[in-house]
């Protein structure tokens, strides 16, 4: 095997691990691995790094544009030391939101009910990441549904170890089984970061989640399962 500190093949390692290398190049690259210690070591390290970093979904992000949430199904995730995710998914259920890297904590309720149709609420709070200091900043919003005023809500953002805490105080909630918080990140992606179950008849509550500091947020919002959109507008 070659012992080098640099190899021109090195840039192929990450695409290979990510299954992004053209099939025509895979066998060539694998043959090279047999004879290059440098690339073999880098491959082992990159496999570990890529796995540790995880996916957006492994930190609870779920792309709204894929339509997956309307099917009532989210990617299964794993939480250390719990068997909560061993429950079966029903058509009206989602997987528990415990994640390998992030634990989402509902403050207001534990009781899951049915999911219902379609509402999406947007909450524009501008560029949150990197702009919030040690002192929490609070921004107030009105909730609109199809241009009809529904009720007020607030969100408080504050820096915590490992990320930004979003604390929502919501009222006049629609009668739905769950509500979810989403963030809009770089590149315009809107992704659900967690779901909170609502008890029957619950119309208000405080909900908190932490967004990892690796996620750069441009806006955050609240939605329920489905397609009809509700929007938050700044007062």
């Amino acid at each position, binding site marked *: 095997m070659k012992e080098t500190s640099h190899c021109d093949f090195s840039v192929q390692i990450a695409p290979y691990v990510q299954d992004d290398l053209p099939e025509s190049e895979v066998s060539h690259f694998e043959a090279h691995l047999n004879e290059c210690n440098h690339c*073999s*070591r880098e491959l082992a390290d990159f*496999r570990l790094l890529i796995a540790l970093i995880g996916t*957006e979904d492994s930190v609870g992000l779920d792309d709204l544009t894929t339509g997956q949430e309307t099917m009532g199904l989210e990617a299964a995730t794993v939480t250390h030391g719990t068997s909560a995710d061993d429950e079966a998914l029903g058509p009206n259920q989602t997987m528990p939101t415990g994640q*390998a890297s992030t634990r989402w904590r509902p403050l207001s309720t534990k009781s899951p009910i049915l999911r219902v149709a379609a509402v999406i609420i947007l909450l524009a709070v501008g560029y949150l990441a990197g702009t919030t200091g040690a002192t929490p900043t609070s921004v107030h919003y009105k909730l609109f549904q199809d241009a009809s005023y529904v009720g007020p809500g607030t969100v408080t953002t504050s820096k915590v170890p490992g990320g930004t805490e979003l604390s929502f105080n919501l009222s006049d909630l629609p009668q739905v089984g769950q509500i979810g918080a989403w963030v809009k990140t770089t590149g315009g*992606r809107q992704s659900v970061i967690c779901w909170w179950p609502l008890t029957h008849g619950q119309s208000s509550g405080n909900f908190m989640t932490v967004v990892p500091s*690796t996620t750069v947020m441009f806006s955050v919002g609240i939605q329920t399962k489905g397609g009809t959109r509700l929007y938050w507008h700044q007062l």
Partner: protein
Amino acid sequence: MVPTPLPQGYHHEMSDIPESKGSDLSTYTATDGDRSVEHKLANYLSFENLYRPEIVRLIYRRSGDRTLTEEITQETFLKAWRSIEVLLEHQAPLGWLITTAKNLLTDSYRRRMSEKRFVDTGYAQSAAKEGQSSNEVDELMDKLDLATAMRSLTADHREVIQLCVIEGLSTKTASERAGVPIGTIKSRLYYALRALRETLMANGYLS
């Protein structure tokens, strides 16, 4: 570190699938419930046969570990079995399987890291006092270490990791998103991962 052939002929762990009814089939009359279960099982087996090779290939490419690949694949399809009715109606079942498998792999690696790590920091003790389990403490430590390391990267390096690793975009799509050639993306990704590794090694997260 030589790549070995993909594992073949995985044993299907079907402990979660209902067993067949009785031994005396000549006198047994199938009920609607049985037919429903049989229908579900048939659907599941078709589903698994269709997608299993893709998941095996993906996880083996990412881990290089046959045993781990088998474990992750088994667990992925166990979750699929439990959600098969929904998955059969899903617009992108392969995407669901891939995401699930990747998350399971991430969790497996993080669990291994936690097992190797000796947690005895002020932060860990503080968290423990608040009733958090050692696993929760480990998760927090993971987040802190990774977040700190990510922040230490240049903007270009953070962007390429965000696009290619966290969002899982292909280098082609990432190059379009970032507005730079594919070669630049590949090069940046390589050096970004190296920089991340160096930082994690410097702070003791990786050895």
